């Protein structure tokens, strides 16, 4: 049954992508669309402060964008992930690979 409320809001300003809501198999195409092609120039910042839940579908999108950025000599920076998102990145063996910035 479809959810009447939008579960994910993705907005793009320059090379910053701000995400709010839950990222799962159903909503991740919206995030994917915002990151392909990579927006703006220089580092791409994906602000996840508004994301409470993310599953492996979301990780797949972030890894894909990370790889695209690396190929274009850019960086994908994941900003302000929640504790559970950070934990997902850790247990998925991605801590040493994805660029995470939880200070901004």
């Amino acid at each position, binding site marked *: *049954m479809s959810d009447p409320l939008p579960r994910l809001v993705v907005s793009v300003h320059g090379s910053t992508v701000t995400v709010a809501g839950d990222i799962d*198999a159903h909503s991740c195409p919206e995030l994917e669309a915002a990151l392909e092609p990579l927006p703006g120039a220089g580092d791409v910042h994906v602000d996840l402060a508004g994301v409470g839940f993310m599953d*492996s*579908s979301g*990780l*797949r999108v972030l*890894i*894909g964008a990370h*790889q695209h950025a690396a190929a274009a000599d850019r960086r994908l920076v994941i900003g302000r992930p929640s504790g*559970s998102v950070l*934990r997902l990145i850790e*247990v*998925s*063996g*991605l801590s*040493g*690979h994805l660029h995470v910035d939880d200070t901004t």
Partner: protein
Amino acid sequence: MAEIIAGGASEIFDAGWVIVGFVADEGVVRLVHGPNVPDEIRADWNDIPLDVAVPICEVLRGDTPRWELASRDEFVPWPILVAEAERAGFSALVVEPIVDDQRPAAVIALGWRDEHPIDGEERELLSEFADVARPAFRRAIATESDRHVASTLQSWLLPSTVPHVDRLSLSTIYEPGTDELDVGGDWYDVVVTDHGRTAIIVGDVVGHDIRAAAEMGQIRHVLSSNLARSDDPTDSLRLTDRYFHERRPDTMATALVMVFDPVADSLEIASAGHPAPIVVEPGTAARTLDHGLGPPIGSGLGGYSATIRPFPAGAVVIGYTDGVVERRGTPVDRCVTEFCRQIDHSIATSDADHAVPALTALVRQRATEPARRDDAAAVIVQSHRARTGT
């Protein structure tokens, strides 16, 4: 979806009970009951062959456009209907098709306890209701058939048997998901390598659809083939990751590889973003095992490493996917702790040297609990002492 339509029709045509029927599988009609359907009918009329001589099947087969049977006298051409009307106590029946692409995609059947001649207004309302239900039905039927294809594919793509391995008791488990929209890409495999070691694998493809099931089959074979030849978990994960990143950049999977060495009594463990296995050594409590943790297969990030640990006789190791442990609304760490406690209890209350059957029952039970929706796979392994004289 069919439940919602049946419920809606029940309310609108308030005198009647409602059954929605559609062809779910080749030659099989699935009947979904609305809220007021008598128990006698609910119990016996679920999946029925399309060739049964009843009005619902006649309309679904396209033999008759629709039926309006206002009293029991009109039931006579269908002996089954006469008998059921007697048993369940109904006296009028209308079967309205939901027509899609000029074919009956589904039917709405309404029954009344008393005789019920349909008037023009009611007939028009019923026809409008069928029109409104059509797009919802089209989606529901597509979903149902996708799910059927995907779960069939999934079961074909898992190994039908696993090899017998000296000194190991092995059990493998796969349980499909409970959510009607979710089909997973979880898998297990057991491969004896060219070097005489045994590779035990559990994995989980990202996604819940036919594509995930199909990708699972490919990843399982590529990874197992690499392991069989190279005998090296780190190298096998690296090669598999590279292979899928280059050819299928949208594909991603987590996998745990554990290679049992019967000479050294050890396990070499490497992980591609997969949950840590749980180990129980004789006389100790169940706990998650530190293992070399690298990124998921298909990420193209590489950088895998392995950990070698002793695996003495009597020790148990369980590799599993999320679906075995995760519970909606409970943090994962707490779910794992609870799972470990259940494992300890299971071993303490069964034969500790032959713990695999009891642990299999435990994992199966967890994997089929209603609070879970994801699919689930697991491999349970216990090591045994070499038999004297062999």
